């Protein structure tokens, strides 16, 4: 049977998270359909049709889906889910919002945030802030799954040529209305996809410092910026910089933890990074237990020095 992947997009562009989710889906089945739900999202459907491994793209295009409100997405997905053995969405804030709703409408369980596919019904997922990996088997007829995108490698060869067909869009629930979105504009790589991440913690001590100390280093490395919860809560960095159990999960080639102590909730979001560099003035800081390279010292002198040395 086939697997349905729900596309992540902004009505214009197909997001990389979709390709990663397709990569997970290909471990379950070779017949992969992608649902593009949105408004005036034809370009996204065309991009999805080119994705490697996709056999069919289904487009639900309607005003009620413009902002992917969970009420409408849930009804749409639940309406077609039973045609599939599994329905996968990326474990982004979008997928986490609508997929449990769709699953419950079908009276089925959901498996969150998988990092591996063992077989068509068995998946591995982190629990307890990543301190434990659980292997879980689902007995439901349709497996509803969200996928931790950093755990799967996208095939971006664009070698697909799937057919595109329309699905009836759903009527608006009338219970929820999109008012506005304040999206940060970044001229740097997206955090979860970046090859290099420069993250700052409470030690940065102000929003001005966060910017003036970390930005030059990030610029030099072409890096994304990240932060600990403490830095976000204190207003030094925007909320979507947060890396960790309850923020984003990143797995770059190199992760710089600067003035971050290394609480388990933070490690949950970055300990799959290939190489971890820690800069901290406290040589006992737990971050050094996971760092490949550590420098003990004052970040305010070390970071500018590092930036110059690169």
């Amino acid at each position, binding site marked *: 049977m086939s697997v349905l992947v729900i596309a992540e997009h902004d009505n214009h562009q197909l997001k990389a998270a979709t390709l990663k989710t397709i990569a997970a889906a290909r471990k379950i089945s070779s017949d992969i359909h992608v649902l593009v739900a949105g408004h005036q999202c034809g370009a996204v459907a065309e991009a999805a049709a080119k994705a490697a491994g996709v056999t069919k793209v289904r487009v639900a295009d309607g005003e009620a889906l413009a902002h992917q409100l969970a009420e409408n997405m849930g009804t749409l997905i639940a309406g077609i889910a039973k045609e599939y053995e599994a329905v996968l969405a990326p474990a982004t804030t979008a997928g986490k919002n609508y997929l449990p709703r769709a699953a419950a409408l079908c009276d089925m369980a959901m498996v969150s945030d998988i990092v591996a596919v063992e077989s068509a019904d068995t998946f591995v997922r982190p629990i307890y802030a990543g301190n434990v990996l659980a292997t879980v088997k689902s007995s439901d007829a349709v497996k509803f799954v969200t996928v931790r995108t950093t755990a799967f490698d996208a095939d971006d060869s664009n070698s697909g040529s799937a057919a595109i067909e329309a699905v009836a869009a759903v009527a608006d629930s009338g219970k929820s209305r999109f008012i506005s979105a304040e999206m940060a504009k970044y001229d740097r790589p997206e955090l979860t996809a970046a090859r290099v991440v420069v993250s700052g913690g409470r030690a940065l001590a102000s929003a001005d410092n966060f910017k003036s100390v970390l930005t030059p280093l990030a610029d030099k490395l072409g890096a994304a910026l990240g932060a600990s919860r403490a830095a976000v809560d204190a207003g030094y960095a925007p909320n979507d910089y947060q890396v960790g159990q309850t923020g984003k999960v990143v797995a770059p080639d190199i992760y710089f933890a600067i003035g971050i102590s290394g609480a388990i909730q933070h490690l949950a979001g970055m300990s799959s990074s290939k190489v971890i560099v820690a800069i901290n003035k406290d040589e006992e800081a737990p971050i050094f237990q996971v760092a490949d390279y550590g420098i003990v010292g004052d970040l305010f002198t070390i970071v500018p020095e590092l930036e110059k*040395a690169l």
Partner: protein
Amino acid sequence: MKVLVAVKRVVDYNVKVRVKTDGSDVDIANVKMSMNPFDEIAVEEAVRLKEAGKASEIVVVSLGVTQCQETIRTALAMGADRGVLVETDATLQPLAVAKLLKAVIDKEQPQLVILGKQAIDDDANQTGQMLAALTGFPQGTFASKVDVAGNELTVTREIDGGLETLQISLPAVITTDLRLNEPRFIKLPNIMAAKKKPIETLTPAALNVDVTPRLTVVKVAEPAARAAGKKVASVAELVEKLRTEAKVL
């Protein structure tokens, strides 16, 4: 407006859990248990709505073993009015929790239901969304700001890339993100007062809900530990190591 808040008893966030030697489950015997941090935020939000005159009554619900009473008492000490314990020793997965909460909601008829966005033990992030589906309520997940005006809620949500604001009609389900508020410290007199507040005990059978798990845990394991690396003495050495040893620059 009546507000219902779901509070889960979980392993305290400071505890590093271990898996049992046979790999069947995590070992949580004798570890410190607390209210799920996101649920503390949910209770705090409800109490603030009551203090602002927007909520009339706060009912807290916890599902699980007898000791969930302690979690309910904590919520009562924060300012909730009464508690409901759905008592069971069974393993409860999010879909079952959502069904039980739906049954309690059918009895209690709250206008606003607040849950945490995620329980820090199962890290599922599902229950609020499932409950919204089962009740047919709209959902405002990952909320960092909630305003009640008449029959509507304005909810600011933390999403990848920024913030989104929705308007949803009541009755509704909200799930809390960390930055919605900062929970208060509980004062001793409030702990004493909470002892007098009522807690009703129900069971899944009495609510007519089948809680059989749909997911089986095949095994649990600790992830491969990262070996601690080395400390380098200078920036020059760091750069050199990153270039020639780690080969990531």
